[in-house]
């Protein structure tokens, strides 16, 4: 219990320090608003278009992979924690290792498949795209 109270305290401090610094600087800093200053920085040029630019779909792919694998780590951790004590209490290696091997094996198959299908490939080669479009037609 006390642990979490302490952590909460750390959280408070973690919020408090930045706030304090902001106040200090708010007292110190000047404020001279100008047109030029507040323009969005685009290497000194006049900003064009919206900043919400469309970006590479691969970012989404990566995020997707992350969601999958990160969740798997959640399921792996409990296993790692009990692994050794279970062994010491005489669980046979097969019973305690095989399931996790299967689990990771399935994951790896998924990863390999995603890999081959270019989920983690940042730029698709135009040749491959052409092949696909031909198949589509």
């Amino acid at each position, binding site marked *: 219990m006390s642990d979490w109270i302490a952590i909460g305290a750390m959280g408070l401090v973690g919020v408090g320090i930045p706030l304090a610094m902001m106040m200090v600087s708010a007292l110190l800093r000047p404020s001279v608003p100008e047109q030029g200053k507040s323009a969005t920085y685009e290497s000194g040029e006049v900003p064009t278009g919206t900043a919400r630019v469309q970006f590479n779909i691969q970012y*989404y792919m990566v995020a997707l992979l992350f*969601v999958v694998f*990160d*969740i798997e780590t*959640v*399921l792996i951790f409990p296993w790692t924690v009990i692994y050794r004590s279970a062994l010491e209490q005489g669980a046979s290696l097969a019973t305690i290792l095989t399931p996790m091997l299967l689990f990771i094996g399935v994951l790896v198959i998924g990863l390999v498949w995603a890999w081959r299908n270019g989920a983690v490939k940042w730029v698709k080669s135009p040749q491959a795209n052409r092949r696909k479009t031909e198949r589509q037609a």
Partner: protein
Amino acid sequence: MVPAQYYLVLSAAVFCIGIFGLLTRRNALLFLMSVELMLNAANINLVAFSYYWGNVTGQTFGLFVLALAAAEVAVGIGIILTLYRNFDDVDVMQATTMRW
């Protein structure tokens, strides 16, 4: 120690927030978030009562619910992405090529 029934109230509240968001928002992503809220309401119950009953069943199942929620989001965002490509919008009410 907080009595277990209070957690029921808390989770019910979270669940209702989820329902509310789900009923009031037409943005598919917000819809997903609301669903996440509802699922996590379930998790609150599971964890709280697994503590209350003194078994880890609830906690373990909570992990699975997390995992499935993530998987659901993964699929869902994919669908929403294609939705955006086809309808140029993520408004769930936009897509009405078929009549109800």
